């Protein structure tokens, strides 16, 4: 195993009675990668994270944290792990500083380094002003930050955050995202969420599961590149007939959207935008808008959920599966 693989999950299964919450999940995460863990509600995200963080025993499969088997040597594996559950595990009667010092100690930070570790975690999570306040009196956003500070206080190799931006205001969300990005530089981070723009904002890898099974896995570029053809939409003041656009080089199909707008499907490997602009100028079509459609994760997500809801949908639909 290459030494920079910090998390390796192999063939992970988890059953609750007859219900299979996670089925045959495998993935790897290297140093410096932020993995966006996606899936609709009830897909098994939280279960998978609980298994990886050692809170639940897997029914089958193995997990390595920093090259150490989580089941064989839990103590060594867990020392490299920081975990923020869905609900931050806070002792409300403690002050922020006391709580963080306790977290540092149980995660094996030596006594003489505790004060420095607390100060560092506080600074990274923007908690300087509230160090002496009781956790129970803090707002939800601050409590969430204390939860994140708890997960990174011992500078673990792997940080697992289960829906870290739930319940925060937009500014706090931006701050937390910036924090996750900066964590991604030195640690491996798994972030579960069902907010798709968040994945595009902070992650460089994506893992999507549905009903416990992996349906999509790869780097963000791979996933969005393979997400189907990139259409082009164009809008004209004086729209030409459809056939005239269809005759341009690199155009495979045209679809009129009304109001002088067209959706243009490019031929494989071609980009018709340049030719389109030249012709539009030469022939006076009055082009005022030209945009390349990027397949967003959102479309993928909806397609996956949709495919499931309508199993009769043809297999030929542009639904990407294993990108990796």
């Amino acid at each position, binding site marked *: 195993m290459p030494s920079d693989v910090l998390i390796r999950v192999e063939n992970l299964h988890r*059953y*609750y*009675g007859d219900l299979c919450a996670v089925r045959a999940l495998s993935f790897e995460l290297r140093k410096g990668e932020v993995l966006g863990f996606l899936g609709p509600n009830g897909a098994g995200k939280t279960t998978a994270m*609980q298994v990886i*963080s*050692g*809170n*639940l*025993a897997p029914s089958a499969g193995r997990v390595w944290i920093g090259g150490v088997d989580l089941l064989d040597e*839990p*103590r*060594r594996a*867990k*020392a490299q*792990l*920081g*975990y923020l*559950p869905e*609900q931050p*595990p*806070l*002792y*409300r*009667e*403690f002050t922020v500083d*006391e709580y963080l010092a*306790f*977290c540092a*100690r*149980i*995660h*094996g930070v030596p006594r003489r380094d505790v004060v420095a570790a607390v100060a560092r975690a506080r600074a990274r999570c923007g908690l300087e002003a509230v160090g002496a306040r009781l956790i129970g009196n803090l707002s939800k956003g601050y409590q969430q930050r204390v939860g994140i500070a*708890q997960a990174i206080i011992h500078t673990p190799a792997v940080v697992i955050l289960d829906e870290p931006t739930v319940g925060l205001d937009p500014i706090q969300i931006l701050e937390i995202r910036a924090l996750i990005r900066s964590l991604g530089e030195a640690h491996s981070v798994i972030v579960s969420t069902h907010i798709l723009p968040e994945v595009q904002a902070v992650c460089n890898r994506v893992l999507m599961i549905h009903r416990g099974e992996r349906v999509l896995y790869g780097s963000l570029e791979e996933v969005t590149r393979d997400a189907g053809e990139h259409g082009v939409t164009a809008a004209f003041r004086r729209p030409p007939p459809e056939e005239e656009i269809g005759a341009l080089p690199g155009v495979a199909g045209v679809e009129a959207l009304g109001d002088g707008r067209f959706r243009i499907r490019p031929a494989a490997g071609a980009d018709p935008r340049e030719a389109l602009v030249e012709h539009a100028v030469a022939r006076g079509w009055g082009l005022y808008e030209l945009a390349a459609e990027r397949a967003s994760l959102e479309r993928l997500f909806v397609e996956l959920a949709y495919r499931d809801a309508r199993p009769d949908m043809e297999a030929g639909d542009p639904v990407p599966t294993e990108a990796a």
Partner: protein
Amino acid sequence: MIRTLALRELRSLFLSPLAWAILAVVVFLLAWLFLAQVEYFQRIQPQLVAIPNAPGLTAIVVAPMLGDAAIILMLVTPLLTMRLIADERRNRTLPLLLSSPASMTEIVLGKYLGLMLFFLVLLALIALMPLSLLMGGGLDFGTLAAGFLGLALLLAAYGAAGLFMSALTRQPTVAAISTFGLLLLLWVIDWSGNARPGMSGVFAYLSLLQHYSSLLKGMFDTKDVIYYLLFILTFLVLSVRRLDADRLQH
């Protein structure tokens, strides 16, 4: 690791008003009973002089007080132990401990020792009462030591049983009532022993009271000490197993 967990437990106890309330109530009640006992001793003192080999201050004042303390603490311990694990479950703070490098055994021992430290404070406060008698009289330190050892072991046993009950549920109140039920049952279990010949030995052995009362009389028997140690060990092991089962839940 265990120490960190134990100190946190103790701190949490003292950060809540419950611990202070319990200390105050227990000490007040015991002081009342203690004074009543001292008064009784003063009244019968003239008659005691006449009796050869009469029971002393320790037997008349301290032993009954420790006997009362055992009952009062049986009522109070469930309130202290109920939140140990059930509360962490309810507040969802258990993942913090479970994802840390601490093992299940360390988590359970840490919580247990935290509770024991609280009981130590309580015992020290109770011990001040008989020791105050030294101002006006003499004490039998052997009997006193055996009595306090008995109370300490009894409290440790209460605590272990309470910890296990707390590990079974996420409702602290359920943990409290079950603990109380279990302790009371073990207190009176030998009362039914007389009904069937042959069984009385087993029931008498299981009784928390039997072993305590012999220590109160100043009789130090390793058999009694071993009974308490086995009792504690059993419930601690069961607690560890119960928490482990949480991870394996199907």
